[in-house]
């Protein structure tokens, strides 16, 4: 009976890993397809789809927009979310638990509903700037990830580290820059990673807030897939995947995956 349980759990784990990796392997393989019909590159690999990525209609502006929005919303959320997390974890704020729950709550709410809510809202207040509208919306997407990670990180942070810095000769600002920020670096890294990816991949909110000139990469990609799904899209997907792998490797080096599993779903 005990043996059976172990076998079942290992079988499930191996299956889960293969099942989860399958689409990623397939997309990478298909990107080297020698023909336009997603053949596995058994005969010979081709890199021609990669050279075509740049020729996709509207690709560069979409990529730039997505990176820009993801980076900016992550930076703003890091500042805003960390300040709030300090207020919450230092326990001097009445109702800090409610604020903590509220800050994380957009994670559990359907993005699509937030998207139409913001669309209605922008319309009703006459706000038409789509770039800044998109950035503001992405703050709501990224803030919960930052808040959750930083609340977890700061609740483990020993604030006497700052006092130790002071007694060793740091001024207050030096204590923040040379002690607090580096000591919290792992949390900042995890928060940035999740926040960046959440914004960069977002579709359900962005779709309602873009116009013809401001389309993010996920919107463009879905459009390419629906219009003409050829291996160029697989090549593009593979590059995005490779970037994701690189980010994860950096995070693993700096923090360790086990710790990430503890602080983030």
């Amino acid at each position, binding site marked *: 009976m005990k043996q059976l349980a172990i076998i079942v759990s290992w079988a499930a784990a191996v299956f889960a890993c293969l099942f989860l990796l399958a689409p990623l392997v397939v997309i990478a393989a298909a990107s080297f397809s020698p023909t336009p019909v997603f053949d596995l590159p058994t005969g010979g690999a081709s890199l021609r789809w990669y050279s075509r990525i740049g020729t996709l209609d509207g690709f560069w502006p979409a990529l730039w927009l997505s990176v820009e929005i993801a980076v900016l919303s992550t930076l703003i959320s890091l500042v805003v979310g960390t300040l709030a997390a300090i207020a919450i974890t230092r326990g001097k704020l009445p109702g800090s638990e409610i604020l903590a729950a509220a800050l994380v709550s957009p994670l559990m709410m359907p993005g699509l509903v937030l998207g139409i809510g913001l669309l209605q809202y922008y319309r009703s207040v006459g706000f038409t700037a789509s770039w800044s509208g998109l950035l503001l919306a992405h703050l709501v997407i990224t803030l919960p990830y930052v808040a959750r990670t930083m609340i977890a990180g700061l609740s483990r942070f*020993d604030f006497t580290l700052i*006092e*130790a810095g*002071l*007694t*060793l*000769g740091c001024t207050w600002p030096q204590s923040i820059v040379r002690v607090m920020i*580096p000591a919290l670096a792992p949390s900042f890294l995890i928060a940035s990673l999740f926040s960046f990816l959440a914004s960069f991949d977002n579709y359900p909110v962005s779709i309602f807030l873009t116009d013809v000139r401001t389309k993010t990469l996920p919107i463009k990609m879905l459009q390419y897939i629906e219009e003409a799904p050829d291996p160029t899209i697989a090549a593009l997907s593979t590059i995005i995947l490779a970037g994701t792998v690189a980010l994860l490797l950096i995070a693993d080096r700096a923090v360790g995956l086990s710790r990430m599993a503890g602080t983030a779903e």
Partner: protein
Amino acid sequence: MTAPDAGLHLSISNVSKRFGATTVLEDIHLGMAKGELVTLLGPSGCGKTTLLRVVAGLTHPDTGRVELAGRDITRAPPYKRNVGVVFQSYALFPHLDVAGNVGFGLKLRGLPKADIASAVHRALSLVHLERYADRPIRALSGGQQQRVALARAIAVEPSVILFDEALSALDRKLREAMQSELRHLLTQIGATAIFVTHDQEEALTMSDRVAVMYKGRIDQLADPRTLYDQPATAFALSFVGQSLSLKGKVVSSDADGSVVETSAGPLRVPRRFLRGSSVIVATRPEHVTLTAGDNTLTGTVVGATFQGSRSLVEIDAAGTRLTAEMPGRCTLPERGETVIFSWPLSETLSFSGEEHA
């Protein structure tokens, strides 16, 4: 010790501090000579940590004056005081390795790299961790982290080193070993240090003088021997070492002392009290013998335990439980036996009842 003394290395005078409606420090005076080791001893909430933070500059007093090495530092921020602090949590920087932690203060002082390296090495060899310089903090045991925190504090050659319950996180055996080692090390480098602890054994082992603190005041400031033999208050008596005490009323008083009527019988004390005032009479367990003497009482033995070098006899004297300490080899009385016991007048301590905790 009322006015700041020019010859003192550290001088705290008239320091008071309130947090809202609570007074945490009330008119504190404390002077320390260079190279002296002083412990602030007391229960939690007595203000000892606040006093330490006042010296470190992490808390500012409402009134009073703090002078260190001839300089008024009352309003100086921590980074301009040249104090070293060993925190209870050690507060080691997790993003730096051992050498990075120890050299942190020196780097801020803008020392050349070579000087920092040699100072770090010197500090680490004092705590026997010179081989651990490249280790990350999380790879160290609790005892090793404690040593790194100490090395970090002494590396900057501070005018005074402050220890905030610095040994309390260690297990008992390690703590006892660290106590004597730390004292030896501090004497060796001629450091002036203040320890904060609630552990009386630590206080007696580590310090030249102990300040017993209670409710924001220093009850008594004395060397360990005096503190034990002549506690100034009933609180100092109860907090340091074992004691037996009885409450009573003064029935007569003359030039040599007073007679106090307690529930167990009359007792003589070598101190004058007003007739009718309530007094606590006490002694140390090792002064008690099972014979008649100056202050003799009768009681029933409720328990006797052999502990090797000594034996403890618990006696019920008219409802008050008293513990007497006997030499280990003596014949112990039986449980339920009625015994006569006494202690000499010279070892009789007395305190005014009003000041009792």
